[in-house]
């Protein structure tokens, strides 16, 4: 392969394009630091002072740390349980795909991907509230169960590429099926576990619709839901609103800054499976 010269035209075009991506975030950051009188002037200029007053006020008003705790609690347990259980279910199916029952189960989970959430939404909300599941734990259970559909699909593609001989060697050494999975298969699934963890984490952290319809108590609200609930109270105080938005976006942006390479390759691996 010959070494090609850098294509500067494309580089410049892509840099200009990236400004469109960064601009709303720039606007969010600067407005979060401004005061209401500054909003009358040019919106593009930097704030006069970098005071954290808006953030302090937004934290108090929206009870930010409570919402953060709820979002964190949900995301943390959904990721853990999704990775542990979905991989196990996928393994059981992948190693028995030649049997009718497991093959049917595989297509059953797969076909659920085509069912839009609004179709199950109304009865699901009735059902969960009747069963006392209209809370954070209920939300976690639903995410973990619903995730099966997509994750079984991507895990199975990966598990089938792992040679059965590896397991047979462990079985000869006296390991049980259970032991084989946790000691041999699960560690081998590491790249797929990372992919599933990333996609699950983003999904649970940013989801709006399920918390909106399911949670009955405002004290359980997640970060996106809080922005929605306080929308009318922010009214025209955009500085306060943007400080609140920024704090809700910040945790994921921070994680992304440090782990972007890992996140991008993880999502890519999941999507081309």
């Amino acid at each position, binding site marked *: 392969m010959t070494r090609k010269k850098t294509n500067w035209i494309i580089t410049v075009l892509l840099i200009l394009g990236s400004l469109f991506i960064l601009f709303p975030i720039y606007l969010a950051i600067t407005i979060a630091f401004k005061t209401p009188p500054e909003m009358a002037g040019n919106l593009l200029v930097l704030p006069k002072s970098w005071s954290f007053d808006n953030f302090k006020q937004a934290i108090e008003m929206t009870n930010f740390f409570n919402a953060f705790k709820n979002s964190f609690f949900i995301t943390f347990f959904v990721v853990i349980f999704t990775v542990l259980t979905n991989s196990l279910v996928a393994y059981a199916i992948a*190693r028995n795909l030649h049997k009718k*029952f*497991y093959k049917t189960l595989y297509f059953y989970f797969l076909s659920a991907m085509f069912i839009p959430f*609004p*179709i199950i*939404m109304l009865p699901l909300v009735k059902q969960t509230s009747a069963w006392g599941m209209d809370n954070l734990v209920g939300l976690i259970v639903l995410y973990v169960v619903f995730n099966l559909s997509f994750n079984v699909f991507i895990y199975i593609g990966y598990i089938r590429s792992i040679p059965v001989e590896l397991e047979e060697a462990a079985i000869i050494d006296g390991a049980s099926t259970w032991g084989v999975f946790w000691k041999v298969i699960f560690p081998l699934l590491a790249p797929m576990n990372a992919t599933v963890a990333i996609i699950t984490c983003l999904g649970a952290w*940013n989801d709006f619709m399920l918390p909106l319809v399911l949670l009955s108590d405002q004290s359980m609200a997640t970060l996106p839901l809080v922005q929605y609930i306080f929308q009318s109270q922010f009214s025209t105080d955009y500085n306060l609103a943007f400080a609140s938005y920024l704090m809700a976006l910040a945790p*994921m942006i921070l994680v992304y800054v440090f782990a972007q390479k890992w996140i991008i390759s993880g999502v890519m691996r999941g999507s081309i499976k």
Partner: protein
Amino acid sequence: MKKNHVFMAIALPALALFFIFHTYPALQGIFYSFTDWKGYGSWNFVGVKNYLNVFKDNRAGAAYIFTFQFAIVTTIVVNIISLLIAIGLNSKIKFRKTLRAIYFLPYILSILIIGFIFNFIFAHFLPQIGTVLGSELLSKNILGDPNLAWIGIVIVAVWQGVAFNTLIYLAGLVTISEDLYEAASIDGAGIWTKFWKITFPMIAPFFTINMVLSMKNYLMVFDQIVAMTGGGPGKSTESISLLIYRGGFEGGQFAYQSANAVVYFVVIVIISIIQLKILNRREAAN
């Protein structure tokens, strides 16, 4: 325990939980779609009356038209822009890693919050620019115009949707060998010919994935609309999901919106199947 029993002990609870929380609600929805249940109180069977009413309902009709228009336009725009960006990121450029990270950033952000930020951009920032430039089109809030508000929602959906689709195209582009392009250059092929004869056929499977996933996602549009217009002005940007949510939870139309949801499901399945058929045939032809 025997090996087969262990597998069964894993698969059965998974099946049971999935059935209870996913399939059972879906079946309940279908069941209630044949009743007149408001979501509370008593109910009677009404046959297919709800379905007939969905087809006669102007509000539902408008929601279907808006949702289709939005989904088709957004899917096309997102895929054109993503493909261009992916081709750009895949060529010999400087700062590739950084640029790739910036273009992927919107994928990790909450759609709802991005919607709120764009709401402000349309309501305050663009009008300010418009006033300075003396442009009448820019100086009003397009989200307040029943004929233009849907464009604002397309813009926010494109801003966010391009991230994921670009990544998929990029995954396809890196598999194409540089030799193919060089051979084509020797044969005197131009950029256009190279794109249609080499690039596009090679990434066809990725194109299929993107078209099907985008269309399905945009047919379910909800968060963006809640954040930007709330379905307004009037009912001009009310999507099917929003209509089901509003009617079902706030309007006492549990049974009626369940019928609407079933129609919606059938529509999504038909569209996905048609897309897969057409796109797979084209792939095979190539």
